[in-house]
């Protein structure tokens, strides 16, 4: 091939093509997530505790992927809405398509008190970005009962409480020791 002959740099030939891909998906909530959403409206976080290994999954998945056993309503457990920041990242937004944030923001993993259950990609509120740290104690900021919505809860958003919890606010308690969480996977 002789691309040079057909691709001069200084002409007005067409060299790029835009294609805007958009797809819509509609699906019912699966039963365990439906139950999770209903409980969120009541101000409760629920999970399934694996009967074999004891790990808690939030929202419930209907199985434990570690033990490969199914979990049911009988394995349901109500979780605390207080916890500890066990991981976080500061995102400095680049204005790509779909990015609505303009200032640096935090996405944190919050491990709930009393077990392993962890909510990922959570917003933190009332705390400057540079003060966020592993070990920080936080509590859920629930929307008032009448203002809660589960419209954004889907089978795809494991761990989200969007529409019901605005984020997590530092409680002012002394930090939990960070070494307890660093280098460990959360679920």
């Amino acid at each position, binding site marked *: 091939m002789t691309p040079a002959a057909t691709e001069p740099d200084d002409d007005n030939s067409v060299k790029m093509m835009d*294609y805007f891909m958009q*797809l819509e998906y509609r*699906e019912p909530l*699966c039963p365990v997530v439906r139950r999770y959403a209903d409980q969120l409206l009541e101000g409760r976080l629920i999970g399934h505790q694996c009967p074999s290994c004891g790990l808690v999954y939030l929202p419930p*998945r209907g*199985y434990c992927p570690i033990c*490969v056993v199914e979990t049911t309503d009988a394995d349901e457990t109500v979780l605390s809405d207080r916890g500890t920041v066990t991981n976080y990242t500061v995102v400095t937004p680049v204005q790509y398509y779909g990015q609505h944030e303009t200032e640096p923001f935090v996405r944190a993993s919050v491990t709930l008190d009393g077990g392993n259950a962890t909510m990922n990609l959570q917003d933190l509120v009332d705390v400057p970005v540079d003060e966020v740290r592993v070990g920080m104690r936080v509590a859920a900021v629930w929307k008032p009962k009448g203002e809660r919505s589960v419209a954004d809860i889907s089978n*795809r958003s494991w761990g989200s409480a969007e529409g019901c919890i605005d984020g997590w606010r530092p409680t002012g308690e002394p930090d939990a020791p960070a070494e307890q969480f660093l280098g460990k996977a959360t679920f």
Partner: protein
Amino acid sequence: MDDIAIIGYAQSPSQRRAELTEPQFLFPVISEAIERANVERRDIGFTCAGSCDYLSGQTFAFVMNLEAVGAWPPISESHVEMDGAWALYEAWVRLQHGDIDVALAFGSGKSSPGDPSEIYPLQLDPYTLTPLGADPVSMAALQARAMLDKGTITEQEMAEIAVRSRTNAANNPYAQVRGSGDVDTLLREPYVTAPLRRHDLPPISDGASAVVLATADKARAVCERPVWIRGIDHRIEPHQPGMRDLTESISTRQAGRHAGIDHGPVEVAELSATFSHQEKLLREALGLGDEVQVNPSGGALAANPVMAVGLARIAEAARAISERGVSRALAHATSGQCLQQNLVCVLEGA
């Protein structure tokens, strides 16, 4: 090539709209296939999955599907963005290395949340075909018209294929479209995309299938009646539909020859004919006479869980051998538009 055997298989019932998530409905299918294979999960040396993130509407959706496998401690696994039949092909190749003796292949898809006519154009040439919204029904209709014009099929024959599929599906617990309606009634229905009517199209299905493979020694040790893979091959044709002869399936003929279908009589053929006219085209490409039982399960016109349907054909062909005493069967899977890519697998009993 070493002989590899199918020692376990399972499918989910196909549903128009599954309430469960893809990992959730995969979960019992994989467990059942392993249980039927009479092996332990930890015996599996390699796992390969077939699924499509565009169907799921989520990037890396295939990683979630691994939750149904049991991937901790870490396992050796792979994924194809293709029907599970190609996952089985990769697992078969992997077993040829001889260092492991059991492999798992599965396929799954949840087609119901999206619109197939908008998703599938994205698998085509992004400059000249995707921007036209070239959907699979329209593409299949071009192929059917070419066959009708050439005189290699009639609309009556297409309806007869649909009726036979639905009738056969009556006894298949995994099928979705089961039997009623005679040919004349179907032919009075309006065209969806002429020359195709509703009965010429596959249903929209959610579902999964799984197959467990083993090397010869392992298969004999754990399985009373292994189903032997005597040959497996896949071939592909040019992508542009206007650069192929749509009235023939050269790639199917080549795959069939390389898989060794001519080495003995075929009793049962499970074909991934997702549109009625394609069954006739495939029969001719594979040289299947009237004595061959085609799609006793009802085939893809009765249940079309995309990404699982080709592997389900292999599972159905294996079932014909292990449960119904058939001695030799073939399974076919397809990928792309208008049968662009085709896989043929020849199975035998003892």
